[in-house]
């Protein structure tokens, strides 16, 4: 090592190291992104080409997207698929946004109560919250289904939104975050006669914004991708969110790879957009919820 560095000089060696690292990193990135490239390629293939090995279609077509969205008949069979993909899209986004809104609102309020208010039994109740976080989701899934049946929430948006909107995790995450915000400012506000609502809304929430955004992204992602719960709650197609709809599409038209891939692309694109927009907050939030939390 030292002999090489003497011959090449430190600057040259640094450049060489950077080049090697770029090559290694690029090969790994290449391996990770191949499935995505194949997916996009296949989504633009006409059916005649879909079983062939080339990645980029010889005669690319945009038809697969309108066919999946039921705006156009299938070019080979001449029939509409009769799937309500657009509706599923709407369902997914609507449910994800509602769950996120409710979750962020109620957990930040509860987190404030746990982090900034003094009341008897506070730590006991918080311990109860923590204890349930250990219990796997499948344990609560079964009785929750029974509860939904007796509330007549099957096949409704309510049934998808409400049980997902009150997790112990959200409260836990935001409580940890609020504890790390210095208390000096709310003491001052209290002396000025501000009530809890003012302190919460004007002082604590603005400072807790990174944590709130992180929780919002994690919640939205979870709700958008949620599969188990909608699968057992729904049997009417018009309420399906995308993942369940994808399953229906796959079980009916699974052999038409080009249609499946067009649907997959449409499924993944909103996520990639969210990721690019919120990247900065996301990384911060994940580190927060992990080691430091």
């Amino acid at each position: 090592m030292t002999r090489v560095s003497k011959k090449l000089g430190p600057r040259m060696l640094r450049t060489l190291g950077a080049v090697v690292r770029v090559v290694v990193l690029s090969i790994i990135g290449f391996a990770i992104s191949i499935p995505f490239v194949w997916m996009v390629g296949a989504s633009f293939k006409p059916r005649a080409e879909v079983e062939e090995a080339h990645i980029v279609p010889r005669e690319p077509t945009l038809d697969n997207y309108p066919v999946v969205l039921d705006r156009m008949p299938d070019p080979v069979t001449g029939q509409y698929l009769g799937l309500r993909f657009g509706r599923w899209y709407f369902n997914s986004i609507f449910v994800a946004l509602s769950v996120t809104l409710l979750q962020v609102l109620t957990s930040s309020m509860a987190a404030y109560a746990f982090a900034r208010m003094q009341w008897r039994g506070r730590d006991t109740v918080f311990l109860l919250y923590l204890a349930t976080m250990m219990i796997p989701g499948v344990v609560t899934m079964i009785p929750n289904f029974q509860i939904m049946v007796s509330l007549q929430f099957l096949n409704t948006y309510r049934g998808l939104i409400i049980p997902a909107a009150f997790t112990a995790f959200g409260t836990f995450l935001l409580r940890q975050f609020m504890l790390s915000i210095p208390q000096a400012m709310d003491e001052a506000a209290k002396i000025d006669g501000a009530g809890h609502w003012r302190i919460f809304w004007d002082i604590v929430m603005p400072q807790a914004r990174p944590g709130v955004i992180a929780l919002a992204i994690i919640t939205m992602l979870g709700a958008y991708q949620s599969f188990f719960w909608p699968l057992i709650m729904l049997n009417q197609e018009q309420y399906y969110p995308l993942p369940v709809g994808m399953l229906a599409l796959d079980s009916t038209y699974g052999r038409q790879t080009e249609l499946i891939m067009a649907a997959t692309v449409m499924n993944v694109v909103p996520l990639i957009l969210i990721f690019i927009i919120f990247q900065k907050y996301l990384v911060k939030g994940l580190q927060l919820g992990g080691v430091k939390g």
Partner: protein
Amino acid sequence: MGKPVTKKSRSREALAVLGFLAPNLLGFLGFTLLPVVLSFLMAFTNWNLKPAVDLEFVGLRNFADLIGVQAIDRPAPLLSALYFGSAGVLVAGLISVLWANMADWRGTRVGGALIVALGAAVLALAVLRPRVGEDSARAISHGLVISGGIGILAGLGLATREGEGWRPGLGTLPALLLVAGAFGLWMLNGAMWGSYEPRDARFWQYFYNTAYLMIGIPFGIAGSLALALLVNNDLPLSGRAPGPLLAALLRTAAVAICVVFGVVGGTTVIGKVGLASGAGVAALCFLAALLITVRAPAERLGQIAGTLLCLLCGIVTMALVLGMGQPNVAVLGGLFWLMAAMGVAFNIVAYRTVYYLPTFTAGVALMILWKALYNPETGPINVAIETIGNALGRDWQGPEWLASVPWAKPALIIMGVWTGIGGTNMLLYLAGLSNVPTDLMDAADVDGASAWGKFRHVTWPQLGPTTFFITIMSIIGGLQGGFEQARVMTGGGPAGSTTTLSYYIYNKAFQDLDLGYAAAISWVLFAIIFVATALNWKFGRELEVSP
């Protein structure tokens, strides 16, 4: 606390607490705590959604049905007692070995040597035993190979401890227990399963599947750590490049690209696409050349030049390979150079983003994508295997992947590693790396430590808490996992080989409508998770402190 606390203000305070807490607390009580309590009660009933079944309290029957055994012919209580006694001795040995290691009991090294011998014997037994064609027999011998290997590794770890010599002592006892338990199980195995059978054989098979699918966890963690080390520091990219020379070079390149694509651009669509993109990049090069000469800051010049160089290389590669009639190789070559260009342009953030994408987009859609990738006839994986085989003059056939019993689990493991390797675990390791004190590193540098030495003696011990956290979370997730893959990709098959415990619970509850039994399985799963976490907590934390 300046004002005296009056009764009125106190009650107002209580009201405020209630106002803040109530929405979340009510939801939590209704949809988390109540279900937990209900689920526990359900596990002791025959709760069934079929209207014909009356609700009854059945005590521990669900649990007995799940993990118990029944006599095939006539019961032999002594035999089963001995068998389960041996199993208990084995488990006690396992726990006390961990304990002995932690508490530095005397004689632990001798015990380690004993465990190595035991592991070797188990391994030899699994390898030498005549193969039986049945799946369950094969599954058992896989399990023996794995546990033998783990035994040898763990035993070696114990036997090479530093400090004390080769004298037997209290620490040898756990290893003796382990050997005795294993010997007992081995001796009684044939007789036991000749006269008893498990009451719910599927539960044990699915438990085995769940554990098997967790083999991917150590690979995933090691991969995440390697990636984190690779993307931890920025690339040293900024630097000067001779501006006017570079601009002239780029302008020439722009013309050259046009010429190359003019030649390659034939009648095919790919040719046209290539021509268009080539012309586009050429125009970009030209524009960049102008910009560089006019206004790029000097220290960014090298980076811009490098990016353009990578793009240029990509275009030339694609053009050349396309000219040779290999469109796929051209696309893949272009992809590599695109990655390099992105890396040079946006530095390390570009790679972090790309590595994180599979985790961020993970879900049913990606599983359906992988199902298409694994398609035995038309899927690109097998097509690639055959193509490479053809190029080498061999007749290679890809495996049947999800449709075959031996390959379905490895296929799911590969997908899992691809999804998770650059995800949350990598970010956690990055956070951990940023907390490694720099003075430790500097001290190691002064001592002239090698790169491996620095990793082994500084970075790795400092990352201990992170590794510990990731391991626990992965084990918890792995034990609960596998539902989506089974439901979307394999239907739990072939022959139940990808059914995990969570999919079994789903099937019991929502296909057989047997909610009571399903609740019992979910509590057994909880118990397994709890024990795994507790063991990790007890022994993992102690281990991470000593380097």
